[in-house]
């Protein structure tokens, strides 16, 4: 697979449409899912995904094979998703920061992907972006701050609020399940 992908990437660099189509087919379903983390509307998410692939194929020569190709594409998709949200004027970050003393309840319920996505969609765009970047994508706060143009303190406070809200929602889900049973 790796050898095939490397050969495809090499051909795609030379603007071979077939190679680019194959790479698109290989990675687009996953990348659409990534964009969907950030953007509630699927149509906008797909638009962000196509923007991302446009940049992938036009800037393919900048891929220096350090790290996986999927990881490189994924970072482009995240940036395009944030750009899309900014374009839709839905991203706002507060100017103030909250001092966070995080305490967590032990919540462990089985929820499916659709419910997870529903929980994440319940967050505001600012909370959602920081939470997804930190908890799902594995970014550090200073990386999130640099990417979004905010301070590390803002990133931490946004994460704190996102987690707090998610906990509340999880508690409600847990209660509903117990009631159902």
């Amino acid at each position, binding site marked *: 697979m790796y050898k095939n992908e490397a050969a495809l990437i090499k051909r795609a660099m030379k*603007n071979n*449409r077939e190679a680019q189509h194959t790479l698109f087919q290989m990675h687009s379903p996953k990348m*659409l899912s990534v964009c*969907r983390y950030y953007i509630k509307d699927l149509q906008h998410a797909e638009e962000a995904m196509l923007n991302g692939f446009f940049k992938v194929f036009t800037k393919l020569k900048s891929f220096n094979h350090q790290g996986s190709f999927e990881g490189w594409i994924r970072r482009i998709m995240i940036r395009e998703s944030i750009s899309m949200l900014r374009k839709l004027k839905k991203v706002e970050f507060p100017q103030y920061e909250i001092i966070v003393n995080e305490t*967590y309840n032990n*919540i*462990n319920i089985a929820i499916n992907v659709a419910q*997870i996505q529903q929980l994440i969609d319940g967050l505001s765009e600012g909370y959602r972006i920081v939470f997804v970047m930190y908890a*799902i994508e594995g970014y550090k706060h200073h990386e999130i701050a640099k990417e979004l143009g905010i301070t590390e303190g803002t990133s931490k406070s946004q994460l704190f609020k996102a987690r707090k809200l998610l906990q509340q929602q999880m508690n409600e889900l847990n209660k509903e399940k117990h009631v159902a049973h």
Partner: protein
Amino acid sequence: MSPIKFEENMKRELEQRTIPVTEGAWEKLQQRLDPEQPKKKGKSIVWVLGIAASLAFVFWLTKGAFEQSDVTPKIVEQPQEQETPSTENDTEVITPKKEEVFVAQDIKQPREEEEAASKIEESKPEAPVLNPQIHRDEVLLATNVEEVTPTENMSFEDQKVQEVVAQIVDLKEQNTTVSDAEIEALLEKAQREIEVKNLLIESSSTSTAGRVNPDMLLYEVEMELDKSFRTKVFEELKIQFNSVRNAVAQRNN
């Protein structure tokens, strides 16, 4: 612990998810990608054309340089007067380049020619190319000489003008003062050559085309030449031989 575990669960579940793209998504992307290629092709075509134009220009320059170098001055071994540029077997015409100095000869008097030749040989024994030997009993004939200058289309008089100018320049380049007398001698010589040429034209018939009538030439010489002028001619011959020799030496260097 819980948020971490909770978030880990979320991460694991979301990582496994894929969402199929809508039909036509690739076509949309392809349409955006396709306009990018002609620009690059256009850019590459521009580069190719630019390189081709540069190569053509360089080739043209080198070709011009080669052509100029091919037109080398040829110094005729037998000094001869300028004749018509026609190319018959027995007629030769010298059309020297700028560096050359045309050597006029009075060949009717072999003894004096020998003296002139010996003078030349004595003064400049290292003459590299020019053969100063003057054959005895040789009458000045118009013989064929390849035209070596790129001035083939110029009239004979214009060529002579150029030669005179070239001779004067050569004299100046040799750091010799060019006196009015010398210039006058060059001019007279050139004028005589023109007259000889005219003689050729006037006397030409199908059988003698390009040839000089020696009787007529002798008559002309006898009419125009006096002793003092003869001396001037020999002096001029000496000077011009030196000029030619130096020009050849410079060229070879």
